[in-house]
């Protein structure tokens, strides 16, 4: 009981810090950061687009590692395996949310700067495929029969994780139109130092928000699992009483 109270306090403090970081980051991005020379105010979407795209490449790893732990613990320690599974589903959902935001902000920017909503360019296509992979993961979880959902989903997660680098490479060969990476993309890459705080705070704020969502979803899933186990225990006890 005391543990619950501690967790709840930590969660609340984390949430408040996250909101504060996001508010500050938004002020930096929309007000303080200088207007970009060629694109104008449209460039400000960069402060949301790049952090969410970076984070949507990070959360699949959490999903993959959690799924590996699930497969490892499945027989030896089923209770602990369930916690790994809760992490897996939470991170898959956060991945879908973040990659959706990344795709949508990218499309808004593309409409304003390129004049088109969408183009089948390497990065756009690989991000769309990442989104498709994790949506199909969530579909499998939704449609599979209870009792084996976790194992099947963990297997699919391994496939998806192996597929992502192959997708990325094959699409690279296919075509490229996206602006060269802003960071580490050659001598002219990088942003003006005056834009750096806005970018950094947005990465931090949205990373904290992603972690908050993940932990929140995790504890929700844990509660669902506990209710399920309780119901199973009661029905077993009920059937034993009838037998007597």
């Amino acid at each position, binding site marked *: 009981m005391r543990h619950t109270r501690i967790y709840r306090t930590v969660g609340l403090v984390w949430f408040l810090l996250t909101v504060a970081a996001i508010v500050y980051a938004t002020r930096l991005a929309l007000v303080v950061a200088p207007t970009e020379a060629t694109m104008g105010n449209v460039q400000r979407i960069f402060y949301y687009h790049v952090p969410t795209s970076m984070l949507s490449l990070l959360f699949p790893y959490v999903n993959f590692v959690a799924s590996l732990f699930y*497969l490892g613990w499945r027989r030896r320690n089923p209770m602990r395996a369930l916690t790994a599974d809760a992490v897996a589903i939470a991170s898959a959902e956060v991945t879908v949310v973040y990659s959706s935001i990344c795709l949508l902000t990218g499309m808004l920017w593309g409409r304003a700067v390129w004049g088109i909503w969408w183009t089948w360019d390497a990065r756009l296509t690989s991000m769309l*495929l990442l989104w*498709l*992979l994790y949506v*199909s993961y969530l*579909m*499998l979880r939704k*449609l*599979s*029969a209870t*009792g*084996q959902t976790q*194992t*099947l989903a963990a*297997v*699919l997660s*391994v*496939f*998806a994780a*192996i*597929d992502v680098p*192959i*997708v990325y*490479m*094959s*699409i690279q*060969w*296919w075509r490229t139109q996206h602006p060269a990476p802003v960071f580490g993309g050659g001598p002219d890459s990088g942003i003006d130092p005056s834009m750096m705080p806005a970018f950094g705070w947005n990465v931090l704020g949205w990373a904290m928000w992603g972690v908050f969502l993940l932990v929140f979803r995790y504890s929700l899933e844990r509660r669902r699992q506990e209710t399920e186990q309780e119901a199973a225990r009661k029905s077993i006890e009920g059937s034993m009483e009838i037998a007597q």
Partner: protein
Amino acid sequence: MSRVQTELGDEMRGLRSYIGCVWCHLQKDLRLEWRSRDSINGMLFFSLLVVVVFSIAFDPTAAMSRQIAGGILWVALLFASITALNQAWTRELRNRVLDAQRMSPAPPSAMFLGKALANFLFVVIVEIVMALPFLFFYNLHALGQGWLILAIMPLGTWALVCNGTFFAALGLRTRNRELMLPLILFPISIPALLGMMQATTAVLTGEFAPDPWIRLLVAYNIIFTLVCLLLFETVLSAE
């Protein structure tokens, strides 16, 4: 010396019994198909329909058909093989055969390999039969190195069938499993689809080199065949 020999002998025996299991499953699936001919007939007619519908949709000239034929061919085969793959494991559900196989001491991956090979043969037969109508309807002759098709077709087919057989088993006990298979197979297969379509288009048009795409297919096949073999037992005994 003698111990090394006996260990080697044990391994050889193990390998031989594994191949025996694969062969047994393959024979069983081929015999089932020979007696019913459900999968192959269904696939043949289905892919013929797709080819006809696409030629009506695009009304292609010879030059244009070279550009789009590679894509249409694989889309037709992809949809057709989905219809066969969905039936591949439901056959085993009748009379609880699959439960019996789960209890048998034979390695589960041998069963998977046998079934994947059987499905591979079915799709290859469909490809051989479909080759002629396809060439006629689209007025095709390859401008690139035509013989490379002989490498691209089996590689692409194995990429579809190996993962398809695996995901059909994975989706076997889900609700609406007919819908589930394409939902999970398509996103995973996109690199392979890209590889086979690009390689086929390269051979038909002769405008660019198919080699990198063939290499992609080979790498994809090796990686995913290994993953399927390693994880099949987990999927079969998932509960």
